[in-house]
C-alpha cells in the first residue's frame, strides 16, 4: 500500500519524492528559509548573522562573541556557504 501511494504521488500527481539536488546540498536554509541555530561557526543565521564566536583557547569551547561584518562583505557565513556548495 505504501508503494502504491508513493507511486501515485510520483507518477499520477507528478510530485517528486525527493528534494532537488541543490536543496539536498544546503538543507534547511534552502527548503524552509530557516536555520536551526542563531549562532555558530559554520553558517550564519538570517536572524543573528551579525555575531560570531571566536575560540580563545583550544579546549573545544565555543569562545567569546565578537561583532561581525555585514552579510554583504566576505564574512564567515558567506564563505562557508560557498564552501558547502563546492564540496563534491
Amino acid at each position, binding site marked *: 500500500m505504501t508503494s502504491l*501511494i508513493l507511486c501515485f504521488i510520483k507518477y499520477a500527481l507528478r510530485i517528486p519524492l525527493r528534494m532537488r539536488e541543490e536543496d539536498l546540498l544546503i*538543507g534547511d536554509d534552502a527548503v*524552509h528559509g530557516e536555520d536551526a541555530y542563531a549562532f*555558530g561557526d559554520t553558517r550564519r543565521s538570517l536572524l543573528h548573522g551579525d555575531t560570531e564566536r571566536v575560540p580563545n583557547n583550544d579546549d573545544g569551547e565555543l569562545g567569546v562573541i565578537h561583532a561581525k561584518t555585514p552579510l554583504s562583505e566576505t564574512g564567515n557565513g558567506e564563505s562557508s556557504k560557498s564552501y558547502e556548495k563546492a564540496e563534491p
Partner: protein
Amino acid sequence: MSATNTSWLDHGDNAWQLTAGSLVGLQSIPGLVVLYAGIVKRKWAINSAFMAFYAFAAVLICWVVWAYNMAFGEQWGSAPFIGIPGPIISMDDELRQALLPTSGIAPAYPMSTMVYFQFVFAAITLVIMAGAFLGRMNFIAWMVFVPLWLTFSYTVGAFSLWGGGFLATMGVIDYSGGYVIHVSSGTAGFVGAWWIGPRLTRDRDDFRPNNVLLMLVGAGILWTGWNGFNGGDPYSANADAGAAVLNTNICTAMSVLIWTLLDITFFKKPAVIGAVQGMITGLVAITPAAGVIAGWGAIVMGVLSGSIPWFSMNIVGKRFALFKKVDDTLGVYHTHTVAGIMGGMMTGVLATTEGCAAFGLTNPGGAIDGNWKQVSLENPLFLIYTSSGFNLLVPFSLSVSIFS
C-alpha cells in the same frame, strides 16, 4: 445515551483517558519533534522537526473528518477490514458515550475523549515513519503522503486489530499497538525509503547529530509519555492500567541496560545514542504485551528487546546489501519492525491468564500458562506484515500488501 444524560460517565476514567491521550500527544509534539531535530545533521534539523510537526496536525483533521470512522466505526459491508468513512464532528458526536460499534466496547467517557485518544496513536505512527524518510524527502510529497497513508493503510490495520475486524475476532492480542503502530510504521518506512531513494552519500557518511542533549530531551518525553501510550489502553483507570505502566518502564529500563552492555562489549564504549535506541526498542517491544504479562515477563522482554534489535541493527544492518541499499535514516526498521514483531511473538509466550482477564480478554494466557495456540496466533501476523513489507521482492505477498 443522550448528551444531556451522563449517568454513564466515570469522572476518574475520563480524567485518566484524557491525561493518557495528552501524554501520547506529547510524545509526538515535542517528543519526537525535538528528538529528530537533535539526532540529525545540523542542516536537516528544521526539516526533520517540521515533518513530524506537520504530520501531527494533518492527521487530526483527516481523523475527525473521515478516518476515525474507517478505523473504529461501523464495519463497511461484509468484509471485516475497514469501517465506513465519515465525519465525527457534531456536538452530539463529541458528547455522547464512547462506543466501538463493531466490538461493542463502551467505555465510561465521551466519544470525544475516545476520538482524541485514538488520534494521538494514528499521529505518532506517521511521525515514527518520518524517521525513515529524513534528510531527503520532498516536503510537498510528505504533505500529500500523510493523509493518503492514514486513509488507505493505517485505518485497515487499526480496524482489523482494534476496531473489531478479523484479526481481533481471531483472538490476536495487540495490547497497545505493537502491530498496528510499530510494525506497520517500521515496515512502511522501510518500503518508502526504498522508493524515495537514499540521502546524499556525504550525508550518509557523516550524519553526526547536531544536538545530542536535545535528542535526550525528546527521548525522555518519549519514555515517560509511554505511560499514557500503554497505560491508557485498558480504556479505564483500572488495576491493569497500573500494571501496564510499571511493566512498560521495567522492560524499557532493562532494554537500555542490555543495549549499553552490548555497546561496551563490542564497541568498547557506552554510547548514549545507543542507549536511546535501546530505550525505543524496549518501549516498542513491551507495547503489545504491557497489560497482559507479569513484571518478570517485562524483564525477560527487556533482555530480548535490548539484544535482538541490537544485532539486527549493528550486525545484520551493516552486513546485508538490502540494508545498505535502502536508506532508512534512523533505522526505524530495526527499532520498530524488528522490536515490534519480537514483542508480539513474545506476548504469545509470556501473556498471563490473570493479565488477559484484567485487560478484559477471554484468552487463557500465552504459552507460559499452557496456551501454545496464542504463539501461533501472534505468528500469522508476523508473516503478513513482513511479507507485505517486502512486497516488491516477494510477489506472492502482493495479495496481503494492503496491510502496510
